[in-house]
């Protein structure tokens, strides 16, 4: 858990534009994200936050511009890039029929980090406040608990890039605080966190960067705030 990620990791976008259904979501977005940064993507509903995250994951190739991971085009890094990545979207691949433990086991197995043993999974589930729920089929869990199951991956997998889409949804106050801690800890270890949330992240603002996507009365502007750094 305490490993440091190599300091040269970097994700950068050049002239990134995306047009969906004949509507420009964002135009000419430029940013560099280096290890140790937490990037919050802000914007109103429908401004393309989720789309941007999915593009950065490599799930969508419907964009123009270049994305580079460690100075190499992302789509050429392929599985090397995906091995460095955890993406938790709106739906995080939690099957309702399987138990929390089975779901996590599979997710860890296909992410090819040598898998995880039951003890690690039980520990992670305990960290997200789900001890005792390991063997419960997830359709019996509440929305917040389901969310926590998917977030438990963050405690086990050693991937440097976390791309989280609204991770705080349906999570109680206590949980939000813990997750925030986890996110900034990850950044402190040299990892990258890119997330969207309407919740205002406050802690250690020096590590926080904002990318604003906003649809301003027909003109599409994207701006990058560098708070500190």
């Amino acid at each position: 858990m305490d490993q440091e990620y190599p300091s040269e990791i970097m994700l950068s976008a050049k002239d990134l534009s995306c047009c969906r259904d004949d509507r420009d979501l964002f135009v000419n977005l430029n940013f560099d994200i280096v290890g140790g940064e937490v990037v919050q993507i802000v914007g109103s509903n429908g401004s393309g936050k989720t789309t941007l995250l999915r593009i950065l994951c490599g799930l969508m190739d419907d964009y123009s511009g270049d994305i580079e991971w460690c100075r190499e085009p992302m789509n050429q890094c392929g599985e090397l890039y995906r091995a460095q990545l955890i993406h938790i979207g709106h739906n995080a691949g939690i099957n309702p029929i399987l138990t929390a433990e089975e779901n996590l086991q599979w997710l860890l197995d296909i992410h090819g980090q040598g898998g995880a043993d039951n003890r690690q999974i039980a520990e992670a589930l305990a960290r997200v406040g789900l001890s005792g729920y390991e063997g419960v089929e997830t359709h019996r869990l509440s929305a917040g608990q389901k969310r926590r199951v998917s977030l438990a991956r963050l405690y086990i997998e050693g991937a440097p890039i976390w791309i989280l889409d609204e991770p705080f949804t349906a999570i109680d106050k206590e949980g939000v605080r813990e997750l925030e801690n986890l996110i900034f800890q990850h950044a402190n270890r040299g990892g990258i966190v890119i997330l969207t949330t309407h919740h205002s992240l406050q802690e250690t603002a020096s590590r926080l960067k904002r990318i604003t996507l906003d649809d301003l009365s027909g003109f599409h502007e994207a701006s990058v705030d560098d708070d500190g750094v």
Partner: protein
Amino acid sequence: MGEDNQPLSLSRAFFSTLKRELKIANRQRSQLVNPLFFFIMVVSLFPLAVSPEPSILRTIAPGVIWIAALLSTMMAADALFKHDFEDGTLEQLLLSPQPLFLLVIAKVVSHWLTTGLLLTLLSPLLAAMLFMDTNHLSALVLSLLLGTPVLCFVNAIGAALTVGLRKGGILITLITLPLHIPVLIFGTGCVQASVYSQPYQGQLAILGALLVLAIVLAPFAIGASLRISVSG
């Protein structure tokens, strides 16, 4: 993260996916038996609709059983990626650093184990219902054993192409049926040859060739289709 456990994690990813799919199927028994009942029902319609005459039923039996098997695997294919698409599993599958074709093969194999294989095991019963001679059973079972996996692979292409659509159902049948024709021809041809007391190894060999072709090529088509469906 060590490089040395890579070979381990390749097979681990494959078998873990297979195990997961089988677990899900096992917990939804009703989904499991539906295609089987459909299979039996379609076959039992023929004596009612065509003729209860044993001699007629015996002649049409190979074709009827094959068509019923084809339709039942198709019925089951609609759900192949649907739930995964809805709960985000598909995204995680695509984000896996493991080769996608491997995971896709695992999914199709489990699909076959839960439909095609069971249909094959059930087919002697239906052959008896249609008064088929018992010495042709081996041709029927072997042809289904080799042919149904091909059907499953082709169905999976259709399912992957239509998974993002609100109204997939009938479209899958429309786009995959033409592709099923060779399997149908050689499958029934195999049983037919046995009925004519001709050697049927040739047909089995062709079915085998089709199966190998499906295993080699279909996973790439399925993978590409899934990427398109998820990004769309």
